[in-house]
């Protein structure tokens, strides 16, 4: 299809607007917040137009410059892609609102305030591109841009700790990029294309393609912080300023996971052999247990929330043996697939809510050590309530998007006889209750809080709003589930 209609324009705008905004923010300097606000509105509108188009008219494909693959590059918006674009738009809008207050230029300019806006917008453009692109090299470019933006956001404060964390992040990310690039080169040499839909026809379940797929998967696993490549994530996510942490934890790993998902379900579904799929899920399960166990041992709120990300990302990998390979033709495939998409969306909303709430607590007491949070339930009820609701979603308790996800994946696990993955869900949920209970108990403890910086109510409303959406995703999950199925490969007509 040739772009030109409104929907094609909207699709391009989701990438072009943040990119343009990023450049503009460099030029305008102190007015970065206003630029970002405008971009957030624009992208929000574009995503709304896209969603309406995809819901009404099905999958939208745009060949860039009118050149079809293998000559050109295609962008595609299916239900999954638009849902993730929507997640990005919602989280970014909240982040922009909080960052505008945090990096206010009223008290003089700071390096962080100046650098944040161009970086966060370039990161957003790259993220949206990972959701839309159908070309593995184009995806590589997006991934690199995403990583660079993310690393810079970690380091933006300039303190020694976050700088070291950013450096470590950079080393891991570069390794991941190299592995990915190597795999892509092998594929291109063998098939003369990196287009996902052409690869789906040409790829063979033979050693060369398997090696290539393995390299790409390893690279993406590093970037998604899959156990045992997770070590870079907690200090990086915890060290960044809170609005940046929200973006890093809620959105950035979803980008690389999204490519992994496209690779195994769309580009090379035939290569998915059971041992590979089980290995991925096994590492995911280990991430759930290990990440949660480490989260239990942290004494700082942001570290707990960051380790929770390691654990929550682990759940996503359970999709591979349940919905991939031979599972693809089974009735439980749809449950596992949809449940995992729900987990990604719900975690995104809840985790952003948590980091924004944590940012407000830091704003109020000046640090995020647990004992310092005592008594905040009285002074900041809205933010604490938002944190609590987000915890409900992360625990997978009803009614929340996390529960819908857990229910669907667990149903698939039992139906397929792979009960061990259900065990991971149960244990992970209980461990999450353990590590999230500690901050909740601290917030509710009876203590006269020390001197507090007052936090405006409208900022407290942001985490509550995001967490409310994570809950709402579970209350009204019918429509999103139908929407996610639009354009799904071999969509089973009915799930379990």
């Amino acid at each position, binding site marked *: 299809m040739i772009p030109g209609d409104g929907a094609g324009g909207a699709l391009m705008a989701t990438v072009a607007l943040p990119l343009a905004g990023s450049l503009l923010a460099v030029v305008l300097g102190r007015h970065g917040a206003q630029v970002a606000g405008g971009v957030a509105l624009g992208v929000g509108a574009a995503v709304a137009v896209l969603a309406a188009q995809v819901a009404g008219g099905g999958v939208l494909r745009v060949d860039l410059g009118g050149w079809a693959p293998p000559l050109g590059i295609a962008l595609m918006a299916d239900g999954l892609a638009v849902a993730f674009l929507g997640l990005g738009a919602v989280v970014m809008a909240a982040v922009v609102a909080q960052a505008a207050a945090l990096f206010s230029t009223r008290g003089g300019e700071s390096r962080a305030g100046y650098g944040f806006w161009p970086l966060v917008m370039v990161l957003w453009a790259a993220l949206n591109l990972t959701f839309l692109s159908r070309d593995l090299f184009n995806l590589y470019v997006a991934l690199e841009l995403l990583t660079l933006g993310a690393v810079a956001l970690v380091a933006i404060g300039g303190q020694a700790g976050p700088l070291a964390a950013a450096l470590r992040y950079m080393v891991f990310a570069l390794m991941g990029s190299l592995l990915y690039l190597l795999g892509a080169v092998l594929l291109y040499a063998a098939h003369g294309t990196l287009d996902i839909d052409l690869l789906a026809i040409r790829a063979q379940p033979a050693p060369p393609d398997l090696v290539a797929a393995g390299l790409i998967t390893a690279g993406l696993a590093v970037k998604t912080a899959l156990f045992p490549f997770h070590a870079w994530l907690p200090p990086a996510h915890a060290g960044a300023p809170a609005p940046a942490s929200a973006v890093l934890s809620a959105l950035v790993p979803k980008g690389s996971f999204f490519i992994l998902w496209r690779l195994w379900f769309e580009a090379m579904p035939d290569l998915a052999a059971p041992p590979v799929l089980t290995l991925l899920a096994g590492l995911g399960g280990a991430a759930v247990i290990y990440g949660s166990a480490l989260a239990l041992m942290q004494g700082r709120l942001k570290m707990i929330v960051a380790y929770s990300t390691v654990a929550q990302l682990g759940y996503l990998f359970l999709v591979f043996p349940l919905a991939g390979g031979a599972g693809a033709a089974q009735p439980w495939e749809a449950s596992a697939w949809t449940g995992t998409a729900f987990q990604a969306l719900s975690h995104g909303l809840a985790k952003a809510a948590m980091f924004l709430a944590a940012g407000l607590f830091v704003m109020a007491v000046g640090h995020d050590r647990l004992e310092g949070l005592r008594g905040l339930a*009285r002074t900041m009820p809205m933010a604490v309530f938002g944190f609590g609701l987000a915890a409900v979603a992360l625990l997978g308790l009803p009614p929340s998007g996390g529960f819908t996800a857990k229910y669907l994946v*667990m149903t698939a696990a039992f139906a397929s006889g792979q009960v061990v993955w259900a065990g991971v869900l149960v244990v992970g949920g209980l461990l999450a209750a353990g590590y999230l209970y500690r901050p909740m108990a601290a917030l*509710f403890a*009876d203590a006269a809080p020390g001197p507090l910086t007052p936090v405006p109510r409208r900022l407290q409303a942001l985490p509550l709003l995001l967490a409310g959406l994570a809950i709402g995703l579970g209350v009204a999950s019918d429509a999103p589930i139908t929407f996610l199925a639009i354009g799904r490969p071999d969509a089973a007509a009915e799930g379990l």
Partner: protein
Amino acid sequence: MAALPILILATALVPAAITFFLPQAAHGVRNGLNLGGATAKVALVVWMLVEVAAGAAFETRIPLAPGLFLLLRVDALALLFLALSAALWLLTTVYAIAYFRGKPDQSRFFGFFGLCVAATTGIAMSGTLISFFVFFEMLTLATWPLVVHKQDRASLDAGRLYLGCALPAGAALLVAIIWLESAAGPVAFTEATDLDALAPWAQRAIFALFVAGLGVKAALVPLHGWLPAAMAAPAPVSALLHAVAVVKAGAFGIVRVVFDVFGIDRVAALGVGLPLAALASVTIVWGSLRALQQREIKKRLAFSTVSQVSYIVLGVALIGPAAVTGGLVHLIHQGVTKITLFFCAGIYDERAGVKRIEGLDGLGPRMPVTSACFSLGALGMIGLPPMAGFVSKVYLGLGGLQSGAPWVLGVLAVSSLLNAAYFLPLLYRLWALPPAAAQPDEQVWGLLAPTVVTAAAALLSGVVAAWAISPLGLASLIVERDYLR
């Protein structure tokens, strides 16, 4: 008509949602909202009672995901629990408003209080297992802020223990549900579920998971530890927890599982009824023994609840018609009786500063209304005729004989003796010992009025048990109509 279940949920949910955002000083708005919601709920439930008696059915479906929906459905059993929760919520709201006068964090309290009631209402009306689970977990979460409401050390410890028990229980329940449904399809309470796809051992394992998952809330030994600890909560919370919300949700769930998920024939065939009855009996005796050792009034009452709630489980596990009737009617009888006792304990604490049983010495003449109500409640728990508790015990005993389990009579006898042993000394202290010097003032109508009403209910539901509209009449109707077809 189909919207009536949703309306009933909304009477609790909407005031709760608004209450959260009210400032502490907005007493008029907050009290008006909560009383209005509670009154509206009572009115709607009465309307529903009339309609159901005329043969109407209420069913509402809320889709969640393909193949997954919340089903709100009102049958006679649901109505029994609904009526209890509606009436006691209204009374507890009146009590709580008086109790919390001048205390901080009222908006938070009444917000979660409303959520808690909404969840209980949802549990009563759930028509499928998964709907039940959703509201069951909502109840777990909504109760925690109430338990830790005072925010002191003891409350937080109690809250941690509560979640530490309730969350793993919820996980066990979820596993049981999904295991069951992955083999048998979605389970609705109306239709018989065909479990034959599962091996008998798997069916037994699922039943055990259900009992473990529900048994924490129902405070079955050895899963009961959280309940006495939760005494750290304010009196209205304890009243609600013990009479209608949490422990009843667990017991009600066990009723549903036995009758509407497995069915009595299958429970008998699997041979899981007897172990459940034995577990309930152990709980009955153990709870009473532990109650005997407590010196704090609320702790003693809490262990008494552990014991009494298992009467419901015992009746259901014995399966015979009289036993089931006795179990179901005890759902109501234990509710009104125990809430009376907790209301009284709250008044003793608030107005006289008395927390331990030694403090009760001679309080009877000084606080005559409270003490009279307390005495009625205590006698009801012992099962003295014509109190409500007597009716329950008679039916349970008869049921034991009917079901070929005469040992139940022994359990009941031992339990009644122990009940007497831990309640009569309190009555002796209240009325027979010389009064202390202080003259406490019990004249707070907001605290007294609900207490008098529930005490009267505990007496009346025993006196008029033979009438068709009494709790016993309703319980017999449920048994005849739904379970002994």
